[in-house]
C-alpha cells in the first residue's frame, strides 16, 4: 500500500495540521510516513500545501509531481493540482472557494462542502477534520481510532476537550461522501 496525497489551500485553513494529523495517524498504524510542507513566509491568507505519503514500505522521494489524491481548498490549488492527479485518482475540493469547476473525467472528482459542515458543527476550526473524514472514507489509509490518537498526540492538552467535536467532524465528513 502506498498513498501519495497533496493537500493545498490558503494558510489558516488547517492544511498543514490536517496533513500532520494524517501523518501521525499513519505512524500509529505503523506505516512509513513523510510530511513535506511547501513552506514559505506566508501565514493566514497565503498559499500553503503539504505532501503526505503513507506507505507500508520505505519512501524514497518526499517531493512528487503526481498524486493518488489531491485535496484542494481554493481556486489556485485546483488550477495547480488538477492535472497532477494520477489517472484513476481522487480529487476532493471544497466548492465554497471554487469558480471554475474541475473538468477531468478520468479521475473521481468529489466536492465536499466542509465549510457548511463546520458551521453546522458550530466550530469553524473543525473544517479540516471534516475534510479528513471525507478523505478517509474515500481513501481508508488509516482508521479513525488512529486519527483520534493522533489528535491526542498533536493537540496541546488544553485543547483536548475539543477532541469529541473533531471526532464528530470526521464522522460528518465521512457521511458527506458516503
Amino acid at each position, binding site marked *: 500500500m502506498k498513498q501519495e496525497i497533496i493537500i493545498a489551500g490558503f494558510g489558516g485553513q488547517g492544511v498543514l495540521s490536517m496533513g500532520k494529523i494524517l501523518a501521525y495517524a499513519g*505512524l500509529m498504524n505503523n506505516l512509513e510516513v*513523510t*510530511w513535506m510542507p511547501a513552506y514559505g513566509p506566508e501565514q493566514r491568507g497565503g498559499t500553503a500545501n503539504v505532501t503526505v505519503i503513507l506507505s507500508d514500505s520505505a519512501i*524514497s522521494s518526499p517531493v512528487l509531481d503526481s498524486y493518488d489524491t489531491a485535496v484542494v481548498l481554493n481556486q489556485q490549488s485546483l488550477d495547480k493540482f488538477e492535472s497532477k492527479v494520477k489517472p484513476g485518482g481522487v480529487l476532493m475540493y471544497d466548492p465554497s472557494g471554487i469558480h471554475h469547476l474541475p473538468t477531468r473525467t478520468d479521475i473521481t472528482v468529489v466536492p465536499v462542502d466542509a465549510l457548511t459542515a463546520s458551521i453546522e458543527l458550530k466550530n469553524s476550526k473543525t473544517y479540516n477534520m471534516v475534510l479528513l473524514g471525507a478523505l478517509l472514507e474515500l481513501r481508508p489509509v488509516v482508521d479513525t481510532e488512529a486519527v483520534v490518537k493522533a489528535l491526542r498526540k498533536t493537540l496541546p492538552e488544553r485543547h483536548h476537550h475539543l477532541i469529541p467535536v473533531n471526532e464528530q467532524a470526521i464522522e460528518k465528513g465521512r457521511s458527506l461522501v458516503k
Partner: protein
Amino acid sequence: MEEVKLMKGNEAIAHAAIRYGVDGYFGYPITPQSEVLETLEELMPWETTGMVVLQAESELAAINMVYGGAASGKAVMTSSSSPGVSLKQEGISYIAASELPALIVNVMRGGPGLGTIQPSQADYFQACKGGGHGDYHLIVLAPATVQEMADFVGLGFDLAFKYRNPAMILADGIVGQMMEKVVLPPFRPRRTAEEIAKQCPWAVTGKGGRGHRNIVTSLEMESPAMEQNNLRFQRTYAEIEANEVRYQEYYTEDAEYLIVAFGSVARICLKAIEDARAVGMKVGLLRPITLWPFPSKALDELSKRIKGALVVELNAGQMIEDVKLSVNCRVPVYHFGRMGGMIPNPTEVLDALRADFNI
C-alpha cells in the same frame, strides 16, 4: 527499543544534541533552521542535563562562543542557514586552525545573498572547499533523512573529537522542514571535568597538575612554525580521507548510467530511478554521505563500468567538479540543477537523464 517518533529534521537535531550529552548550543534564528533553537528552548535541557542553550546576539557571537567552548574541551555546537553560516566563516577557519572539535549545522536555503528561505544546496563549495580562509577542511556530512539528521549529531561530534577538527552537517531546507519517522539515539550523560581533562589534554581547563598552561590559538608569527602546523593539518586531513569516506549505492550492480546526488535530492533521484527501472532503464545512484572526504575512489571504480553520470544538485553545478575529478574524464558527466529554492521533481530528473544520454 526506543519509541518511534514523528518529527522535523531540525527538531531531531535538537533532541539528538541533548541525548548525545552536548555541553552547549549557541545560535541565532534563521529560516529554515529556527526549529533547532526553538526545540532546544522548549526542551529546556539546562534543567536536566545542564546543557547550555543560548541565543546569541549575532551569528558572529554564536560561532565565537563555540570557539571558546571548544577550546575548553566541551562538546559545543551551532546551527544556522546559509547567510548565517557565511557570517560564521571567520570563526570556523579559526576553529579549524586551532584544531578544535565542534559541530556546525547548515540547513541550506536559496542564495546568493539573503536569497530565499526555500531549500538549496548552493553552499557545497563553501562547506567543502573552504568557506573561510586558509588550507583547512571540515568533515562534511550530508543527511538525506530525518533519521540521519538525528544520527549525524553524534557521528559529527565523534569524528570532530577523534580528529580534533570541526564537523559540519550540511542539510537542506527539505530535510530540515519535513517530518518523518525517527528513532532517537539513547541518552548519555555529559562528560565530567575529569573525563574532559583525560580525553582533551590540550584543552584550556586550568593549569591543574599539568605544570604548564595550555594555549589554544590559531596565531603563529613564525612562518616555519606555521608551515609545520599546516603540514600537521594536512596529515590529519589525509588520515580522515583514508578512514572516513561514507556513501551509499543503490541499484549500481548492473547500472549503465549513474546519478550522483546528496541530501534530500538523492531521494528525489531515487524515485526517478525507480520510475526509470520500471521502463527498463538501468540507472543507479551514488549518494555521498560525507561530502568531504569525498567518495572519489568509489566513483572512480563505478566509472569503469558505466556509460555516463548525471549529477543532480540544488545549485548551478558544484559537486559535479568533484565527480568529474573522480571519474578522470572516463565517461561524460552532466549536470541538472534547480536554483534559488526551487526543487526538481522526479520526472524532471528522469527527463534530464534521457535528454543528456539520448535514452
